[in-house]
Structure formats: structure tokens, C-alpha cells
């Protein structure tokens, strides 16, 4: 709990004027009724001066109807506040600390009440769940004395967290082949092995995995044979999400912001790449750095799902931690495997991230930029920002970086168009 000193609200300021006016009128004309009115004025003036806002000792309990909901679910929050001290709180105004990533859809996260020692008050409201790990901020209690002339603010923490994990699709139809195939990561070698492209069949040997048996041939001729594939080296891809404060931009208040879109796209890309056998990792460029080294497998998929859902760098609202760009870039560079390709997800609304992209590309990591577009053009300044972003993307393209400008169309559509463009 944290306290602030009590302040004067000046609620009763000027009440003395009643007493003086009553005297001024009553004295020369000798009206006893007016003297009594003056006494009322004096009485209220005294009432305002005596008594301070009580030092409130409160305990807060918060209950969520569902602490791990799915996205867009409605969760009811019930807050119970108890006066754990020995003083009566005559005027208690409660405001709950709803996390910035959530909005209240029904009811109010507030209450105006009074509590005797040991008594409780309860109120509830409904929030709409959004992806991520949401922590409640302390409940704010504004405490006043009975006359309302003094006020004090108390903050009480209850440590409530709600985790909302969206499902990561088992597979995704994001056409990412175009992204990685032309790169050195995916090289078709002529060695027969267990890579992915069909090469030849040979006689079945004991111990060959049943998934590689050519069942069509068996159905036709009754012979068991094993298919072997042309070995392709799997690519190593790192999905890098720009999570700086400058990336949290949205065209209006109803559209998800660029970081949210980036995280969603990174999730789909992760699934798509993993299912084609590539080694995929996830990283963030911003405060609260995140790093998941490229790997494959179900366990890896589970880790990635959890990371994308509730790692602080991927939250729906920006972090308040400080960020040191050059240090972060150095650290990222150290961690990147030498042959890693990078898919950068960033709205590209400032010049700095464009220089980061060019630098990473120059270090030998083939970089593709998938850029959700948060710009709009309804005012002149916003139109200028849109033009600046267009210019920035064009400059990146001219320096050999593949850019996908992701507007309102689904990402799969944009990728298909881009792949066609690149293969021309």
C-alpha cells in the first residue's frame, strides 16, 4: 500500500460568508433569527476545519471468472475491499487498476461507498480478453473525511494476472516458400536421404519408417518400397519482431496496432516454416528482449506459442522499460547463427529500423521485411507520414531488401503477390 499526504479540497471554502452576511444584516436590525443563521454558518465552518481524511488500511481481493480465457472472451472481475483498520472511512472512492491491454465492456471498475471497520464492499465489471499476460495495476482509493474537506489517495496492490493464450495454428497456409527457397539456406543437393523432395524409390528395408513407404505402389503391385527424398538442407530462419515504442502505431483506435499484427503474422510464419521442416527462431528488437534460438519439434512449437502469447515484449501495449538500440543490436548479432535468414516484422514508421534492417542484411543475414501499414491519410500530417513510409520502403527495396507492404489485405494474399513478383 502506498500513501499520499492528505490535501485540502476547499470543498467548504467561503462558507464563512454566510455567517458574516447574517451578522451584517441581523445586527443593525436586531433579528435574532439571523443570528441563529450565523450560528449555522459558524457550525459548518468548524465542521470543515476539524477532522482529517482517515489513514485507511484496506485489503483488496480480486477474483476473475476465468484466469486463462481465450481471446475476445468476456471475463467478469469481482473486487472485494475490506476496511482492515480501526477507523471508519466515511467517504471511500475506489478505482480499480484495469491493465492497459484490456478494456471494460460492462459495468464500471469503480465504486463510491463508506466502510466501518471490518466491513466489506464489493463491485464487479466485465472485461474483454485480449492476447497476452495482463497484470492488474494497484487499486486506487480516494479517501475523504465526512465533510469532504480533506482528501487522501491510497494505492493497494492485489497482484492479479490474466493470461490469454491464443492457439497457434498447427499449420498455416502462408505461402512462405517463396521467401526462403531462393536463399542459400535451402539448397537442393543431389544426395538421396530424408529431405523433402521426392528423389527415388528403393527396396523396403526393415526399420524404414512406415510414413515413407510408397503405399500407392504397394496397392498396385503388392511390393513394399521406400521413398527417399532429395536432401534439402533446412533453412534457419529467425523471425524478428520490432517491439520498440516507435512500432506501436495504429491508423485508428479500432484497428490492432502494428506490433499486434506483427506478432500475429510471426505466429503464422512460425507455423508455416516449422511444418516445412525449417529451423525457426523468434526474437524481438525492443525493450524486454526476447530470444528463442532456431530449432524444430513439438516442444519448440509449444515454447514459441507461449512466448508469442505472453512475453512482455509482444504485449498489446508498449513497455516502459528503457531501450538501448546499439546494445540490443550487438546482442542480437552475437546470437544470430551465421547462416540465419531474418524475417523482420516492423511498421517501418521511423528511419532507425530501416538502418537496422540494412545493417543486418549487410552482415550476411538475408533479410525480408514484412511491414504492417499503420498509416492513414485523413489529415495532412498523417498523409506526410504515409509518404515518408512509402519512400522508406522504396529505398529499402532499391538496396536489395525484400519488402512486403502489408495493408488491409490478408498476409497470405500479399505474400503470394510478392512471391510472384520476385520470381519474375
Amino acid at each position: 500500500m502506498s500513501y499520499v499526504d492528505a490535501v485540502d479540497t476547499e470543498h467548504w471554502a467561503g462558507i464563512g460568508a454566510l455567517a458574516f452576511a447574517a451578522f451584517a444584516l441581523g445586527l443593525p436590525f436586531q433579528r435574532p433569527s439571523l443570528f441563529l443563521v450565523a450560528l449555522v454558518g459558524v457550525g459548518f465552518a468548524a465542521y470543515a476545519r476539524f477532522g482529517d481524511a482517515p489513514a485507511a488500511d484496506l485489503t483488496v481481493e480480486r477474483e476473475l471468472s476465468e484466469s486463462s480465457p481465450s481471446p475476445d472472451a468476456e471475463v467478469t472481475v469481482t473486487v472485494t475491499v475490506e476496511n482492515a483498520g480501526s477507523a471508519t472511512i466515511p467517504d471511500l472512492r475506489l478505482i480499480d487498476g484495469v491493465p492497459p491491454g484490456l478494456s471494460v465492456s460492462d459495468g464500471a471498475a469503480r465504486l463510491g461507498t463508506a466502510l466501518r471497520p471490518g466491513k466489506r464492499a464489493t463491485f464487479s465489471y466485465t472485461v474483454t480478453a485480449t492476447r497476452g499476460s495482463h497484470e492488474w495495476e494497484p487499486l486506487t482509493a480516494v479517501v475523504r473525511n465526512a465533510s469532504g474537506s480533506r482528501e487522501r489517495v491510497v494505492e493497494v496492490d492485489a497482484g492479479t494476472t490474466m493470461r490469454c493464450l491464443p492457439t497457434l495454428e498447427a499449420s498455416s497456409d502462408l505461402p512462405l516458400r517463396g521467401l526462403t527457397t531462393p536463399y542459400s539456406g535451402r539448397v537442393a543437393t543431389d544426395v538421396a536421404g530424408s529431405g523433402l523432395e521426392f528423389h527415388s524409390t528403393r527396396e523396403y528395408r526393415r526399420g524404414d519408417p512406415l510414413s515413407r513407404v510408397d503405399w500407392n505402389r504397394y496397392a498396385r503391385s503388392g511390393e513394399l518400397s521406400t521413398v527417399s527424398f532429395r536432401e534439402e538442407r533446412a533453412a534457419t530462419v529467425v523471425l524478428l519482431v520490432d517491439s520498440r515504442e516507435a512500432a506501436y502505431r495504429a491508423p485508428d483506435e479500432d484497428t490492432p496496432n502494428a506490433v499486434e499484427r506483427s506478432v500475429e503474422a510471426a505466429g503464422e510464419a512460425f507455423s508455416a516454416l516449422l511444418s516445412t521442416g525449417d529451423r525457426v527462431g523468434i526474437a524481438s528488437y525492443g525493450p524486454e528482449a526476447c530470444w528463442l534460438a532456431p530449432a524444430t519439434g513439438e516442444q519448440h512449437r509449444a515454447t514459441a506459442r507461449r512466448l508469442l502469447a505472453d512475453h512482455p515484449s509482444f504485449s498489446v501495449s508498449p513497455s516502459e522499460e528503457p531501450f538501448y538500440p546499439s546494445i540490443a543490436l550487438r546482442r542480437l548479432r552475437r546470437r544470430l547463427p551465421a547462416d540465419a535468414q531474418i524475417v523482420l516484422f516492423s511498421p517501418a514508421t521511423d528511419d532507425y529500423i530501416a538502418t537496422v534492417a540494412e545493417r543486418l542484411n549487410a552482415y550476411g543475414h538475408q533479410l525480408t521485411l514484412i511491414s504492417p501499414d499503420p498509416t492513414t491519410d485523413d489529415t495532412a500530417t498523417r498523409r506526410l507520414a504515409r509518404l515518408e513510409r512509402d519512400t522508406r520502403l522504396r529505398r529499402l527495396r532499391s538496396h536489395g531488401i525484400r519488402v512486403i507492404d502489408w495493408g488491409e489485405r490478408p498476409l497470405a494474399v500479399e505474400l503470394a503477390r510478392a512471391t510472384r513478383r520476385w520470381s519474375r
Partner: protein
Amino acid sequence: MSEITREPSRFGVAVAAGFALLSVAATAVVVPTGGAVSGLGLVVLLAGLAVASRRLITNGGGVLVLGALYAGYTGAPPLLVLVGALTGVLAWDAASNAVSVGEQLGKETDTMRGEIVHVVSSVLVGSLAVAAGYAVYLAAAGGQPIASVFLLVVGAVALVNALR
């Protein structure tokens, strides 16, 4: 839904309007002119509540009380004058608190309990002052010598100054 509406609650408006009506009634019963003045105060107070303006509320409350003072000046019975002035002050207090609650908690929030305690507390204090004064008045019947009145005035002026 999301954001709250920072306006006075219905309950607060009702309580303030109720007190203001009482004040007008108490004054108008004896002194129609005073009642008219108080009526104007009532209108200003309600307007202040509608636009959540503290200044209008204070002005309205002031005019309400002015009507009661005028009634006192014209020699109305003390009890009525007292009721008129007291309910005028209570109306102003309730309205001002309703605006404060509206700004901090919003119209949609359940604030009845908090507001009731505040109003009841003010009523008790005011009634106590009225009762004490009226008791003195009844006990010390008859015309007052200037001297005592003078002392009372000076003393109360000093008290109010000290309490400001």
C-alpha cells in the same frame, strides 16, 4: 462502453434538488419575495448540476440562502428562516459533492452509499447547530440587550476568522 461519463449521479441531483425545494418552500411560505429570490437560486443550482459547473452551483446556493436571509430581515419566524438557510446550505453541499463524485467516479458507478453518508453527516451537523441556537433563543426570551448581542457577534466573527 469503456469510458465513464463524468457527470453528477442521478441520486446526487435528486438530493440536492430536494433540499433546494425545501429551502424555497420554507422561505416562500412567509415571505413570497424571498421565495422568489430562492426560486431563482434553485434554477441556477439545477443549471449548475446539469452542466457540472461548480461556480453555478455555488452561485445558486448563495442566492438560495440570500432568500432566507431576506426573510429573516423582514422578521419571519426564526424556525422557518433557519430551515430555509440550512437546507440551502445542504443543497449546495450535496450538489458540489455530486459533481466531485461524478468527476472522480462517473455517472454509471454505484455511488449511493458514499453520497448518503456525506449528506447525512452534513444534515446532522447543521441540525445540531440549528438546535443549539434555537434552544438558546428559546431560553433567553425577550429582547436582548445590545451588549450581549454585540459580544455574540464579535465572538462569532472571531471564531469564523479563526476557523477559515
